[in-house]
């Protein structure tokens, strides 16, 4: 019997074979099993809805915003950019402090640009307080934040202290999760140069 190879039939046969291979390959690619404990832990991170990031004009603070955005991205959590205007005890709390307010707003603008890059929802808060930690903890409590991300500025540490006073107080007083980012040597070097 003479064999005759038909072009249209060969094309259909090839398409048929390719489709079958694609379907079977996809079927056997099963994602790995997630143990119960791992699932619970993943859930705690997935549950993040509001992340507070205090901002000042520093590289470590901007990096904290970037880190917060990356944590918030999978579940599209809201970033709360907080600028605290520290009012000395010698002045009433509602004293204007325009220069400090302006600096806080400038820092927030930089943070907002980072949030925009990640296409994340964000909000701005400028709050007067007697000390930075007090303002941060208050905002986190009022806005029911799930997480505070702090950028640790190495310059602000007191000699012999591991953390600055503000960071230590936030960790102690906040009723939500706190992540402290201490920049590595390269970033710390750049920060002191700037």
């Amino acid at each position, binding site marked *: *019997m003479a*064999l*005759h*190879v*038909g072009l*249209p*039939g*060969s094309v*259909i*046969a090839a398409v*048929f*074979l390719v*489709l*079958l291979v694609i*379907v*079977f390959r*996809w*079927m*056997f*690619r*099963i*994602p790995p*099993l*997630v*143990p*119960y404990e*791992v*699932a*619970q832990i*993943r*859930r705690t991170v997935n*549950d993040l809805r509001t992340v507070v990031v205090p901002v000042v004009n520093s590289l470590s603070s901007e990096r904290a915003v970037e880190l917060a955005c990356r944590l918030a991205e999978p579940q599209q959590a809201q970033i709360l950019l907080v600028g605290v205007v520290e009012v000395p005890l010698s002045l009433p709390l509602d004293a204007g402090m325009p220069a400090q307010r302006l600096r806080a707003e400038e820092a927030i603008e930089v943070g907002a640009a980072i949030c925009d890059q990640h296409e994340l929802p964000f909000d701005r808060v400028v709050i007067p307080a007697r000390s930075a930690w007090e303002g941060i903890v208050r905002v986190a409590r009022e806005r029911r934040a799930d997480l505070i991300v702090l950028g640790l500025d190495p310059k602000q540490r007191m000699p012999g202290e591991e953390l600055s006073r503000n960071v230590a107080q936030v960790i102690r007083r906040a009723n939500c999760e706190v992540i402290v980012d201490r920049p590595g040597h390269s970033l710390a070097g750049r920060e002191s140069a700037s």
Partner: protein
Amino acid sequence: MAEEASSDGQLRRDVTVWGSFMWGYADVGADIYTALGLVAGAAMGATPVAFAVAGIVYLLVGLAYTELASSYPVAGGGQYFTLRGIGDFWGFVCGAALLLDYTIDISLFAVSSSGYFNFFLPALGVRIADFAVAIGPFQGVNLLWLGETLAIIVFLVVINVIGIKISSRLNEVLGVLAIIGQVVIVLFGFVFAWDPNMMLAQITLHFPSLHNFMYGSSLAIISFVGLESISQVSQETRRPATIVPRTSISLVFNVLIFALAFSVLGMGLLPWQVLAQHAGDPIAVVAQKIPIIGVVAAPMTALIGGLIVLISSNSGVMSASRLTYSMSTFSLLPKWFNAVHPRYHTPHRTILVFSAVAMVEAVFAFMTSEAMNTLGNMYAFGATAGYMLVFIALIVLRFKDPYSPRPYRMPLNFKLQNKEGRAPVQFPLLAVFGFLGVATILFEVILTHKIGRIAGPAWIIVMLVIYFIYRQKERLPRFGSVKRDWEDAQRKVLREAEEYELLSEYEAALAARDGEAQA
């Protein structure tokens, strides 16, 4: 396959990816071996078009089952989804329709299996047509074929009552052989023998009347019936929420690809009349036509075809008893059906009752001289009636239970507000199209299937009488539903399925709902 119980009385989760796929394939994959000749007899030159039309509807049914089986990985399939979505009464109606399908599944595939084995009769000098006799008013009753069919059903009853398992390995090996065989036939057939001009000529010169096309496309749906099997076995599948969507979608596409390939190949190899004449063994006839390998491929195909449809028939026996068990558990059928044989530990009553129904259906079908056509009629009715309710259940469950994680969702959803206090709903637009598609096929069945339109509803009515008597006796609501804690059941199912990520997602969703309610 995985019928052993674990120490806590639960079915052990032994079914793997391939096992889950093969459960479905043993049922659906075998359908084309039966359907091709039947559809060709009705849709004539437009057979591939009829398969394509039914295939689109089947695709939507497949996606709906994928969503539901992965969200609710329990035995019961369509009946369970409907019960959960729209209540006990409709759950029963869906179960009754699917039960009709399983009994037809037993008889139709027993007929088909003997049809493929009859392929070898001419080599023994026997002509199957010689055994057709007239019994009173009934003409052309083929006694040999009927006898073979009844013998196969009795054989299946015995092995299922005694509890001999057709080993999963045998099932899987046969499945692999069938797939390889089909692939070889399709590839060689298209490359060396397929004639596009012949197919085009058949489509243009032998296009059926609208009535015939509707009949053909509604029969074509039977080549896609059986997805239920994956749902039925999802309770025994490892990590069902992860695996079931993959195996279901793969099965849907595989069967669709094969059905379209065989119908197109058949029309380019043989006149549709030949396929229609060989309704018992159409794929073997196609294989026979392929040059060189045809001599070997035809008997091989007949052998594999005969065995794979035999397994399909057996899956009908098992699925009927599983479905009945589920229906009894939810107080839709008397517990009498669930009784386990004291010696063999199998649900013997269910097996005997529904296999006896299948035998009656087979005898009845042979009296009509076109046995397979008659059974195909009723098969299409049961499937479409059941699928319609499944689509409604899917839509209702999106509103009633927006919290259950859905590892797979039917595509094309839009957000809608739900009742106060409930999460917003992703409304499945494609499910509406699916419902309309299945409703159209059911309409075609009622319009064109002389037997299906009477026997199908009659079956449902008889079953409803049993349902009402039972519910009355047990003082349970006839049209209403028994109260059940679905949330607790869902937690249990997900925990047992080791789908911890989904369990934690489900618990978080419920906690968020409860938190909002308190606020």
